[in-house]
């Protein structure tokens, strides 16, 4: 099925059509949830954050500035919700103490799962502003400009946070045995 353009769906939402809002949820639920999940790691918390974010989208849809891309606006809401959550809970996110062995099993699926787990844990040890730009760039493929719209800083700042984040993450992954020194 061909997806309808966001503009068309938004128009219908603003006319009070809840079915249209359901379409938006269906379209963006997964990316919103995954953004929150990478930020806070806990699936239940990520689900709560996603729900709150969509509720804010519903409440504020009339105020959405159409000069910006709709998905950038959505990302901004879910990122802010995640930041508020982390701030409110002052979360020290627990993760497994076990550092994986440097000799990884040859099975590709196992390797992928293990790499994912190690990367997710290491991300949580990065400063939150670096974590956000890495998540948006690498997991959601946003451009520098789009990231700059979401986090509301200059493109230059985005680039410098990306660089610092990558350096930091590489160091953390080396400590966890994913890379050789």
């Amino acid at each position, binding site marked *: 099925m061909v997806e309808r353009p966001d503009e068309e769906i938004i128009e219908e939402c*603003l006319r009070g059509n809840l079915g249209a809002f359901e379409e938006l949820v269906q379209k963006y639920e997964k990316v919103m949830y995954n953004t929150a999940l990478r930020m806070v790691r806990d699936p239940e918390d990520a*689900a709560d954050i996603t729900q709150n974010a*969509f509720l804010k989208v519903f409440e504020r849809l*009339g*105020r959405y500035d159409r000069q910006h891309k709709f998905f950038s606006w959505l990302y901004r809401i879910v990122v802010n919700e995640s930041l508020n959550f982390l701030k409110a809970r002052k979360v020290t996110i627990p993760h497994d103490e076990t550092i994986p062995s440097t000799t990884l099993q040859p099975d590709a699926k196992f390797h992928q799962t293990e790499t994912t787990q190690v990367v997710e844990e290491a991300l949580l040890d990065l400063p939150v502003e670096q974590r956000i730009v890495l998540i948006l760039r690498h997991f959601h493929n946003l451009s520098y400009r789009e990231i700059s719209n979401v986090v509301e800083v200059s493109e230059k700042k985005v680039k410098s946070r990306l660089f610092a984040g990558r350096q930091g993450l*590489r160091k953390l992954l080396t400590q966890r045995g994913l*890379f050789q020194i």
Partner: protein
Amino acid sequence: MIDDRHRELINASIDGQLSEQEREYLGQYLAANPEAKVLHDQLTELSRALSVVSHTDPPPQLRESILRTVRIKHGEQERRSPIFRWTATFGTRNRFAFAYVFSAGIILGVALSAVIWNLERETRFDDRDLTGTLATPPTRNGYIHVERKDFAEGIVQGSLEIRRAGNSILADLVVNSAEEVEVITQYNENEMRLTGFRHVQEGISDIAVSEGRVQFKNKGDNQYLLFLNDREPVGGMLHLRIYSATGLLVEYRTNVISGK
């Protein structure tokens, strides 16, 4: 030493943002600069590792939970004002067209508020900041059952029942423990406010009520009633934890509206 310009080029190369000319230049630079080559290779390796991480499917009930909350919100907005749908389009039309309507609305609003405020002042007691035994004692009458969670872990057993009446929420908590346990209930102060806390039996100690949190120690079989009001019309999360001397025994989170 890698200068800022080349560092930026290396990063742009990782992100696939280089022009043909820049790529060619960077290739030559890396060939002549081993330190930069190492950095480039390391970042490429990192980028590959990150590309392995795939998206996770959200929990199957999440979409329905979102839509249920939105439906409640939508229903409230519809009831609140017939002009809601009209005002929802503000910001998408020429704002000056609304200037006269706004001005008239503000004048009318101020006049009505003054009248209503005077009436309310004579007839209503404001107990919003009172909690605990000082508050006007709330009662359980008129609350409708929303959900119930039973728990039995180690030395503790009991239940948490959520009931609701309009924008008021009643968390009815029963805790039965042979030894002393610490009970913590938390909620988001931005979503809900505590209007009353009562314990039906005696035998609890160290009650602490602070921002977004009610905490006490329980021994024996006791019942506690937490009365909360929505700040937002859709309620929020309530988080219950019970600790024994050895650690966390019970943890339960619920969205008091969706019953999730």
